[in-house]
């Protein structure tokens, strides 16, 4: 075997090994998307009912609550960015980070101070590398977040919203995550969770009541509207964070699947090209060998013909 052929054979082997890995990762991600999607769907009833309840209290009572009323001049905002722990997901993390940067710039342009909260190692690494301060960060659960994780993430957020602005509390709470639209499309979005904006939250759960806005009855509150709201809003934040974590997880798996699929396709392409080159090199080797034999034979024939004379 010629030297050139051997080099090609070796490269084909290594690309085939890589292809096996990417193929496996693609299939793992594909199976996880389904699971993650199912979890998003399972969390939906709770989120819908909770949104309905929050809307009911906030519209049905005229209590003023720090979590529902807009501050006239918001000075500080918290931004929760959700990324993943692992890479190999195409543009997934950088898109989420980019969306958060845009939001940060927009808020900074409005003269607000921004506190960063980050979920996922990739986001933490981004801030760490740039030596930018992060209030708090969480890692280790982004692949399959549980409700407990969402609670842990929400706790400091709720606390800082409740605190006075003068004592380092925040006036607004934003969340940046990747929305799972379909297997093929995931989109980074930034949502304001608090203060509540009702025109939006009433639109979302309107499945059965499309077209006609639901008229909410006057509620009787047990024990009181204030207490109910006090108890309801932290749960609302938790459920939104939980939903965002689940959607991000599903999006991450979908992004991984797509990235790994294109890696596998590229490996296929590379193997094809390399095989062609290897074949050409083999043919060249054979041609050269034949011409060497023919050349040698005719040289011998010439030599013996000369000695006969």
């Amino acid at each position, binding site marked *: 075997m010629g030297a050139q052929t051997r080099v090609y054979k070796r490269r084909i082997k290594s690309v085939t090994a890589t292809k096996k890995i990417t193929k496996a990762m693609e299939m793992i991600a594909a199976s996880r998307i389904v699971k993650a999607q199912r979890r998003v769907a399972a*969390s939906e009833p709770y989120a819908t*009912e909770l949104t309905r309840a929050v809307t009911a209290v906030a519209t049905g009572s005229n209590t003023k609550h720090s979590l529902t009323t807009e501050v006239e001049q918001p000075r500080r905002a918290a931004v929760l960015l959700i990324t993943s722990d692992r890479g190999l997901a195409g543009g997934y993390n950088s898109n989420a980070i980019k969306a958060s940067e845009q939001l940060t710039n927009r808020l900074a342009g409005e003269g607000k101070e921004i506190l960063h909260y980050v979920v996922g190692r990739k986001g933490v690494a981004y801030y760490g590398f740039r030596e930018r301060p992060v209030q708090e960060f969480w890692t280790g659960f982004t692949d399959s977040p549980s409700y407990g994780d969402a609670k842990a993430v929400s706790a400091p957020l709720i606390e800082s919203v409740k605190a006075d602005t003068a004592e380092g509390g925040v006036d607004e709470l934003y969340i940046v995550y990747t929305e799972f639209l379909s297997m093929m499309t995931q989109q980074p979005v930034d949502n304001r969770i608090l203060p509540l904006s009702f025109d939006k939250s009433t639109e979302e759960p309107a499945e059965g009541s499309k077209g006609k806005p639901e008229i*909410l009855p006057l*509620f009787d*509150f*047990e024990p009181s509207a204030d207490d109910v709201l006090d108890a*309801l809003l932290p749960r609302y934040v938790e459920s939104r964070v939980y939903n965002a974590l689940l959607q991000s997880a599903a999006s991450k798996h979908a992004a991984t699947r797509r990235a790994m699929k294109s890696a596998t396709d590229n490996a296929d392409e590379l193997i094809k090209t390399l095989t062609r080159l290897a074949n050409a090199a083999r043919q060249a080797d054979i041609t050269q060998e034949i011409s060497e034999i023919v050349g040698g034979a005719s040289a011998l024939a010439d030599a013996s013909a000369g000695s006969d004379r």
Partner: protein
Amino acid sequence: MAELHVELVAADRKVWSGEASLVVARTTSGDIGVMPGHQPLLGVLESGSITIRTTGESGTGTVVAAVHGGFISFADDKLSLLAEIAELSDEIDVQRAERALERAKADTDAAAERRADVRLRAVTGAH
């Protein structure tokens, strides 16, 4: 007879839904029973058990569930029970709950002790 449509949902799944004639739940200001035609209500739930007297397609019977923190909301004969954690009495692993109760007592963890206690009482039916 009028019926209540009940949805019992936990943060990560729908636990139970169906028709009922009476739902008894424990709010922060005491036990409350809701029957069809009740005034619209929104209340904060304590950790405790919820009793649902079922009717309609699911047959007449009683469903008991343990819930930990949550809300009850009722309007238009639709009742939703939202809880961070909710378990039906037949889903509860009694031995595990007992072990958890022992452990919580040993560690003097009041919250955990309460959770385990609520689970056990949901199974035995004692309030």
